[in-house]
């Protein structure tokens, strides 16, 4: 693995100074090593190029294994299904803090502003041995934006949409700070289509104000203290009325070297998800976490991670229930990354105040093959029952057991190409039946193949991906709803002239079934993006979405944007 290269030697002019040795390695995702897992990383550069209006649309346009469902326009209820699993089977971490709602287990994707994001890591496959509950389909880890300098943008476009961002960062003593603010207002369109229950023909708009801030400060002795906060406040209209969705998350992390080969991290996290409708329905999810992680490096090519997590969760539906749950966990992971062979072993035990002890484990073996690297993995994961499932009056059951999964995966990575085959079985799935309520009754099996590539042709960056999957209810044999068997994406980005850039996004989603025998048609979305640099610091960016004006549904009975265009003026210094 270590290729050595000798530069031309010069005479030893200064005898006491040898030429530097440069040790390089490929950057790995923080969530998981790409040589041992199926990972897609989306950086700020791609976020800026895409100018997508929402996080899920961006992810869907650049990652395999992702399904997007949405009940209307911007701000409306949005789900991201990873590898055909449920909406609450994907763990979402913002700066390392778990942000899924404790009420229903999902993350409110619609309320996460893209302007606050620096980097997105999409890790497919089970990760419960490191993170505990929810990571059945995978993990999406969001890192918030930490810029140096100043930036600002103002844009608008179709559906009376206006968007502005302002922020920056810099040095503060020995440390750094950042501050990002954003505001979006969109007139929208009717979320429901005519004929859908509760349809009202008026436009359903969305307004969001968001603020992110943080500091990072070295304490000396290789210790570092970091604080990150994110607040997002959305007001969304639907055919039933308007509602408020508020998300707050933050963490305080202390990182220090306890020895030359021993790193410790103490992480305090907080996440709040607050939802209320104008007619007084209010639910709150609160979670406080503390995590203590040790990374021990016995040699350069192995890494032992040991940690303890504790989470206190509160779920309240006003006038209905107000409950708490507590989870303590211990975990260990060992990675060996040799020249010919890789090994990853993980184990975790979670102790939950409701259902008790639940253990998970995983093993991954990898090795060099034909210039690339092959891996095979086997892992278990689980999803703790949510507050809604446990305490919903009349239908909840506090004795519910966690949903459990087993996944086997085979993957290969060669340069910018990655391919994987997976087979997941989810057992004890919690389902609602009338009048019995929630119970652990269902089983599902999801099999799939994913192929993703990225490479450069001249100055053009090309990315593409193919997803083939079969997600079915194991008892009835019926396909799981809203999961397409075929999906395809392609993106290209590159310079057109010295001052301008062009981007193309193509996304095909095959037919899939939805509730009550509706079939959602296959669709192809074509988006074009462009950038023109007016001056060194100023740029004009444009996006044309759904250029083919494809009529499609992401959820049966709900509208999606037609051909639409957006223009943004941006400044960066």
């Amino acid at each position: 693995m270590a290729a050595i290269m000798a530069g031309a030697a010069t005479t030893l002019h200064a005898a006491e100074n040898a030429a530097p040795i440069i040790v390089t390695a490929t950057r790995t995702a923080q969530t998981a090593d790409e040589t041992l897992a199926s990972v897609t990383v989306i950086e700020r550069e791609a976020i800026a190029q895409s100018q997508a209006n929402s996080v899920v649309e961006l992810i869907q346009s650049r990652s395999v294994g992702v399904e997007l469902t949405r009940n209307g326009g911007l701000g409306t209820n949005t789900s991201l299904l990873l590898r055909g699993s449920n909406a609450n089977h994907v763990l979402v971490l913002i700066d390392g803090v778990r942000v899924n709602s404790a009420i229903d287990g999902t993350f409110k994707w619609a309320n996460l502003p893209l302007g606050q994001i620096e980097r997105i890591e999409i890790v497919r496959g089970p990760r419960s041995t490191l993170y505990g509950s929810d990571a059945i389909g995978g993990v999406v880890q969001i890192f918030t934006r930490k810029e140096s300098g100043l930036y600002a943008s103002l844009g608008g476009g179709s559906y009376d949409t206006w968007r502005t961002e302002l922020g920056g960062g810099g040095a503060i003593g020995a440390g750094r700070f950042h501050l990002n603010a954003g505001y979006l207002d969109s007139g929208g369109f009717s979320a429901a289509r005519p004929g859908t229950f509760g349809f009202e023909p008026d436009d359903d708009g969305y307004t969001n104000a968001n603020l992110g801030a943080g500091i990072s400060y070295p304490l000396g002795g290789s210790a570092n203290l970091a604080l990150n906060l994110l607040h997002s406040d959305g007001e969304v209209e639907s055919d039933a009325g308007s509602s408020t969705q508020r998300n707050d998350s933050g963490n305080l992390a202390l990182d220090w070297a306890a020895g030359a080969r021993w790193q410790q991290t103490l992480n305090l996290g907080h996440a709040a998800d607050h939802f209320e409708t104008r007619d007084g329905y209010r639910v709150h999810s609160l979670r406080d976490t503390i995590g203590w992680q040790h990374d021990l490096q016995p040699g350069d090519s192995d890494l032992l991670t040991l940690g303890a997590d504790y989470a206190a969760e509160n779920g309240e539906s006003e006038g209905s229930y107000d409950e708490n749950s507590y989870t303590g966990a211990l975990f260990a992971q060992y990675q060996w990354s040799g020249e010919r062979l890789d090994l990853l072993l993980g184990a975790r035990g979670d102790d939950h105040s409701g259902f008790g002890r639940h253990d998970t484990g995983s093993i991954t073996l990898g090795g060099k093959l034909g210039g690339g690297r092959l891996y095979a993995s086997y892992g278990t994961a689980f999803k703790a029952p949510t507050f809604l499932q446990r305490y919903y009056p009349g239908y909840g059951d506090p004795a519910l057991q966690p949903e459990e999964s087993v996944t086997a995966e085979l993957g290969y990575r060669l340069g910018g190409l990655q391919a994987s085959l997976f087979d997941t079985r989810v057992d004890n799935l919690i389902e609602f039946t009338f009048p019995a309520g929630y119970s652990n009754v269902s089983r599902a099996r999801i099999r799939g193949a994913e192929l993703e590539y990225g490479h450069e042709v001249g100055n053009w960056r090309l990315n593409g991906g193919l997803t083939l999957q079969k997600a079915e209810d194991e008892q009835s044999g019926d396909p799981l709803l809203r999961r397409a068997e075929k999906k395809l994406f392609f993106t290209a980005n590159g310079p057109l002239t010295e001052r301008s850039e062009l981007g193309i996004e193509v996304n095909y989603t095959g037919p899939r079934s939805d509730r009550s025998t509706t079939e959602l048609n296959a669709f192809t979305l074509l988006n074009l993006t462009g950038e023109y640099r007016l001056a060194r610091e100023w740029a004009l960016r444009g996006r044309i979405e759904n250029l083919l004006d494809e009529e499609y549904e992401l959820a049966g009975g709900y509208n999606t944007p037609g051909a639409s265009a957006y223009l943004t003026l941006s400044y960066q210094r």
Partner: protein
Amino acid sequence: MANGVSNRQYRQARKRRVSPLRWFVALSLLLHAALLWHWQRTPIVAAAPATAGMAVQLLERPQAAPAAKLPPAPLSAAAPPPPVQRASGPQAPASSESEKRPPAAATEPGQRPATPPAGLAAAGSGAAAADAIDEAALESRLRVTLQQSLARHFSYPLLARRRGWQGEVVLAFRLQSDGRIIDAHVARSSGYGVLDRAALDALGKVGRISQGAEYGLAMQLPVIYRLEG
């Protein structure tokens, strides 16, 4: 669909509110044409083979005063430039800075520079030119031997890769006449204990190189850890 007609009417009503479709189509065609034209004009360059895992590279120290900070290394790891084989004849100095030092000599590992660089006398400040040439050539060889011996022992610590840690560690040591490396320590930290320790341990693994310095030579070795991709 039972409400297909009303859907379509509604859909059309909605469409009227956004800009006319034909503009988008026209713009699309224009952009496609521009793109195709551009693609045809752009020579297609085969993508450089991506490095899997890690690579250790040696880099000649750019013209810089001993104590000066390293400039960002000009190497791309995805496609490292091949070892530079330069003519050993005199080269036109590009700047006053490079005037002070001899031009690079073509050197393969273990191979003596063919001809002493012509501009070398200037480096010998007062010493006889011939002596300076001999000494310089010897040192040049020593330097290559040293680099060759050291480089393969260095690797990127997994923890640093995972955390995205990068930096430069400056190691100090003494090279004895029998080729042994002694008194190794960190002269300047990278800011990350893991990188410092990895560099020091790697140097420790070298122990001894095949060529010694006639006199105990105090040396400083910068080790740069850099992540790519």
